């Protein structure tokens, strides 16, 4: 068993991964807005410019299109850029470089090139940043063949997955949750890489399979605790990588439980939950004892006001209620 290590905040796990990979490989370079002296608006790059210099850690102008496009170009010539887009909402500016260029360049060239770039960005709501600074758009990128999409929750996982993302020869969209950078969890001292495309069973159980990721996983775990007191045993699975999706781990769990709930902070329509349920129903209906359920946000731009935002986002009670329905 690995050393559970010390407790770190999520931002530090990201920083550790960046630092370790930069020490290991000179071609790993960073740019993004305010990532230098400022250390990034969420502190994920604090101290890295001091350690690695202004050449390898660059403050970028407010030019998302070029921030991402320049990363693609540099990646073609063998650099490993890890760029930070300050809010996932602004990935929409960077989307041409990511979705039209990075995702397709290798395929269109008949496999001549590779694009080992990572696009990191804080997503998600819950902090009162309103409609244009709170979105969860992981499903947009999952829909683009040629991109890998990672949405970690636990600091340890974030570090291990980011390291793998940096070493991966394909473009990776790496979404962090903006309300989650100060979340604490254990992280081993020694280096650890976690494979992209492999889910993790966060809690074992026998009655219901509950799939969730990013910050929303915390509410899933909270719901699982609550329901254990009611005598319902829940297996909580964090896919961690949404594309490629590790369906096998979910199916193994369903073979035990026969019941599926998927919860994510994004709203349901065309969300990744829909895809997971579709894949289960399409190929593995025989495993199911009840209709699967989704727990997600209301389909509405996120409002600023606290009572409204609370009403819009899923929480542990919503998840628990859905679980009670599938076990009924």
């Amino acid at each position, binding site marked *: 068993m690995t050393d559970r290590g010390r407790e770190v905040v999520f931002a530090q796990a990201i920083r550790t991964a960046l630092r370790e990979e930069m020490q290991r490989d000179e071609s790993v370079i960073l740019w993004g807005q305010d990532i230098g002296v*400022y250390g990034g608006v969420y502190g994920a790059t604090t101290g890295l410019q001091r350690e690695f210099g202004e050449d390898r850690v660059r*403050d970028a*102008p*407010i030019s998302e299109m070029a921030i991402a496009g320049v990363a693609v170009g540099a990646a073609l010539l063998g650099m490993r850029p890890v760029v930070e887009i300050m809010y996932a909402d602004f990935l929409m500016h960077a989307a041409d470089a990511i979705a039209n260029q990075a995702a397709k360049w290798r395929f269109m060239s008949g496999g001549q090139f590779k694009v080992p770039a990572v696009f990191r960005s804080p997503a998600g709501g819950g902090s009162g940043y*309103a409609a244009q600074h709170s979105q969860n758009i992981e499903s947009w990128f999952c829909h683009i063949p040629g991109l890998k999409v990672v949405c970690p929750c636990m600091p340890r996982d974030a570090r291990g997955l980011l390291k793998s993302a940096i070493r991966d020869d394909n473009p990776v969209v790496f979404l962090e949750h903006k309300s989650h950078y100060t979340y604490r969890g254990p992280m081993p001292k020694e280096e650890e890489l976690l494979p992209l495309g492999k889910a993790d069973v966060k809690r074992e159980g026998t009655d219901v399979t509950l799939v969730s990721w990013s910050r929303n996983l915390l509410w899933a775990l909270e719901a699982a605790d609550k329901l254990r007191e009611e005598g319902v045993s829940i297996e909580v699975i964090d896919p961690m990588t949404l594309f490629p999706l590790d369906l096998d781990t979910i199916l193994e769990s369903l073979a035990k439980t026969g019941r599926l709930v998927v919860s994510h902070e994004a709203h349901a329509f065309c969300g990744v939950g829909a895809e997971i349920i579709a894949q289960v129903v399409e190929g593995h209906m025989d495993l199911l004892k009840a209709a699967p359920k989704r727990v997600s946000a209301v389909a509405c731009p996120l409002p*600023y006001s*606290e009572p*409204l935002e*609370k009403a819009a986002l899923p929480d542990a009670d919503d998840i628990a209620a859905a679980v009670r329905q599938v076990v009924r």
Partner: protein
Amino acid sequence: MRPERIEQLIHFYRDMLRIRYFEEKILNHMLPNRLFRGSSHLCIGQEAVSVGAVHAMEEEDYLFTTHRNHGHTLARGMDLEGAFAEIMGRTTGVCRGRGGSMHLADASLGILGANPVVGSNIPMATGAALALKMQGRKGIVVCFFGEGAMNTGACHEAFNMAALWDLPVVFVCENNKYAISVAEDISMSDHELQDRAVGYGMESYRLDGMNVLEVYDFCSATFGRTRRTSRPALLVFDTYRFVGHHTSDSERYRPKDEAIEVFREKDPIHFVEREFLEDCHVDPEQAVDIRIDIKQEVESAFERALEAPWPDPATLTQGLWAESEVTCGD
């Protein structure tokens, strides 16, 4: 100074104070008491641009602003209580609590919105100007943004279209020296921001943004010209924000005393007070009365906003869709 000019300066003074006190309330009271969420971007130090430029607008004109919008919106006459209530997330807020500090808007005042997605308001303002022109209306559109926004592709694409299509829009860039932590040295290949318009064949000027009278005079002339000719223009005002980028900024990117020194030298409100004494012979007592009066106005709006109800969660999705009935066939 002519008496009308003195009257005007007093009017500007009142408006600048209203903005300053409004934001000081946010900084000194609402922040420690957690009366708003997320963060709020204050324009303390930049009031002369807001007041000078907005007062040069006509009633039929429209404006677009940014995350740093309190100056523009209040100068245009946004209701203080409605603005406070919005920042508190109350149902009586100007956007019914949906938007918060970064999104103040008021259609009735021609405030088409505050856009915190940096640069994205520039094409939108250009489009509004296109509509005004095609509808044969006489207004212009004024678009405020920071110098950081001039590095966005949206800005350059819109500049070109505005000039290409002869649109009645004036771009007002407030160069407050920092885009969050990033100073011009780090982010601009060339510091002559006004020159960027030249490549698009657009008129442009660079001016002191700390002198409200100069801002007003220059904007009046420029807006008037755009009104007559339907040609766009770019104005770059040099200014400075005395406080953090937003209410949770560490400010570790600038020397500790820099803001204090610039404040001492250039505070646009002190500037007006000096004018009062030196050129206008305004009785200092009168300035004190004005300050007390405006402070009172801000305080009472704040108190009323604090009493306002929270939005009902059942109304969450209200306002998402426009009521729309399209008739197809007979």
